[in-house]
């Protein structure tokens, strides 16, 4: 075998364990789900094998699924926007702080040490009728009866922000860290105020990090189902809750498969758009 041919094969040989793992753990199960989505659930609950488009027709044309999907995207968008507004100043503060940067980063990572479900449930003890906020306000005489703060859409968004904010801060921080501070100094030496130098130099240069954080927050937010389950009211649901109900409660795996693939396609399209205009490199930096 020639050296050229051997060299051409080497990357594939080295990649083969990873490709094998991806194929077995991601691609093959995904194909199972694709196949399942064309089956039907019989009246007794057992699956009817075959090629039927009923689940797809339902998932794509039923206004109920469209409404929940749009609501999911709306909640994810609001959460992403708020994460950006809250996360950027925090990331900027960490990136520009001197000396205690590692401690601040450690504090940022600290919530990941606690289960996401427990973190979500902690809001019940904070915002509940007999939670910390209501108890404090009542003992101060500000209110006479508890304010209802939980079990609505606002509580769901709050829970999602709590979950997703560190992802935004980390991505923006990585982006800010890569900006040469001499550029800001140069701008101010040329007469720009600090605010102008931020708006015209720092912010544009950190946008890829903001976009990567936004993408992560949006995708993770749109795919969650625990938060609306714990903090939402009877009506509050996201698309993943419908997938859960179809598969677990209704035992309708074929419909659940079609719904999960629909969500995957929508979020996949978003990632593809991001990749087309910004590339995945920034996302990899933020996650790394």
């Amino acid at each position, binding site marked *: 075998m020639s050296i050229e041919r051997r060299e051409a094969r080497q990357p594939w040989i080295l990649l083969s364990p990873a490709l094998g793992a991806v194929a077995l753990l991601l691609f093959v199960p995904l194909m199972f789900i694709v196949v399942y989505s064309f089956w039907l*659930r019989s*009246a*007794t*609950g*057992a699956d009817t094998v075959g090629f039927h488009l009923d689940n797809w027709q339902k998932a794509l044309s039923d206004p*109920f699924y469209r*409404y*929940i999907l749009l609501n999911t995207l709306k909640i994810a968008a609001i959460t992403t926007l708020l994460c950006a507004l809250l996360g950027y100043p925090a990331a900027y503060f960490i990136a520009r702080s001197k000396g205690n940067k590692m401690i601040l980063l450690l504090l940022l990572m600290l919530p990941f040490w606690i289960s996401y479900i427990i973190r979500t449930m902690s809001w*019940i003890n904070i915002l*509940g*009728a*007999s939670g910390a906020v209501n108890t404090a306000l009542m003992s101060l005489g500000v209110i006479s009866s508890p304010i*209802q703060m*939980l*079990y609505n859409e606002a509580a769901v968004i709050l829970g999602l922000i709590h979950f997703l904010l560190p992802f935004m801060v980390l991505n923006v921080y990585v982006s800010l860290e890569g900006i040469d501070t001499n550029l800001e100094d140069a701008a101010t030496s040329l007469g720009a105020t600090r605010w102008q130098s931020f708006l015209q130099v720092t912010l544009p240069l950190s946008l890829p990090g903001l976009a990567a954080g936004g993408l992560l927050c949006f995708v993770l937010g749109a795919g969650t189902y625990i938060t609306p*389950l714990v903090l939402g*009211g*009877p*009506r509050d*649901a996201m698309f993943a809750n*419908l997938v859960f*109900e*179809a*598969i*677990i*409660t*209704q*035992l*309708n795996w074929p419909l659940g498969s079609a719904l999960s693939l629909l969500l995957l396609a929508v979020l996949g399209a978003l990632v593809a758009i991001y990749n087309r205009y910004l590339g995945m490199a920034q996302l990899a930096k933020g996650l790394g």
Partner: protein
Amino acid sequence: MDNSTRYDRLLERYRNGDLNRRTFLGLIGAAGAAYGLQTPFARQARAQSVSQVRFDGWGGVVSEAFRQHAFDPYTAATGINVVDGTFSGGDEYLAQVRSSQEGEYNIAHLSGVFDYARYVNFGLTVELNTANIPNMELVMDALTAAYRRVTPEYLSAVPYNYGTTGLAYNRKYISDEEMKEKGASILIDEAYKGKIGGWSDWRTRIWYGALQTGQDPNAIADMEAVWDAIRSHRDLALKYWGSGAELMSLLAEEEIYVTEGWSGRIAAMQAEGHDIGYYDPPNGFGWQECLFVIKGSPVEACEELLNFMLAPETSIAVAEGQMYPPALDGTKVDLGATIPTLPAYDPTGTLDALTFADPAYWNGNEAEWSETFSRVQRGF
């Protein structure tokens, strides 16, 4: 030569330099792959000599009582270990069982006759030899008959306990008289808007919708009226709870004043000193639980374990722990002083006072109703 000796010899050859690192790792990898591939078949082959039985239940005090009074004595007597797992809901558990290999799950503490029927529909049954379970003689006939109506030729489960899903209310805000007067309709009373709860289970929502519209839950004539009642409840409710722990938390924290609740959980709250009332309205939701043996299990070993679990000392200890009456017939067995005080307890052994869900009726409508409820819940 056993496997560990083979690996030791391989390691020794590698350390001695007889094998290079790539060959050594390749052989270890191949051995791992071979083990992974043969395991499912080996499990079948080993099925003849049972070394353990898996039991899945609701966890908490129930598991502790089972461990102390049934599992440990059973292991001491038979040498068979009992591995106990927990689940948070019957639907989730059925999904797990369906996606597992035969024999992976053995005995489950299932809820409702409709669950029994669902397992039958999925072909997950075994045929128990009740002669191997002498304690079945002590069980109420009414409970066993419900399962026999689904599988007349055989049983795949033994009844274990029963209870009701009645109305639970905070006595600080709702009097016993008001509750008796309003009954199930209190859950759609505008006066308690934002202080009403409800279980997210579609069956319970429809059952109470039927009661609120004056219909027989086992023969609903006007389903649209039931959906309207569910919509009214949804708009007045603060939260649909999804577990017993959440139910207790919402009531104890006074987030809600009234909801349906499981009799045992409410009794537990009362025992803890909470001033929570419990009322079973006419045609209130009665249910029974069973110990179901799943297809592929070592049947004889399971039968022996079921007999330990049905023994009066075990049944009574579990019942006192979970506060649901046992399936044992009070006219045949002395159930002690505590059991007769539990909610829903029937001293006659006939269960005539309770209304149970007709499994054929409810399972026949499951596909349509569970999906429609999902829509109604979200504002449709």
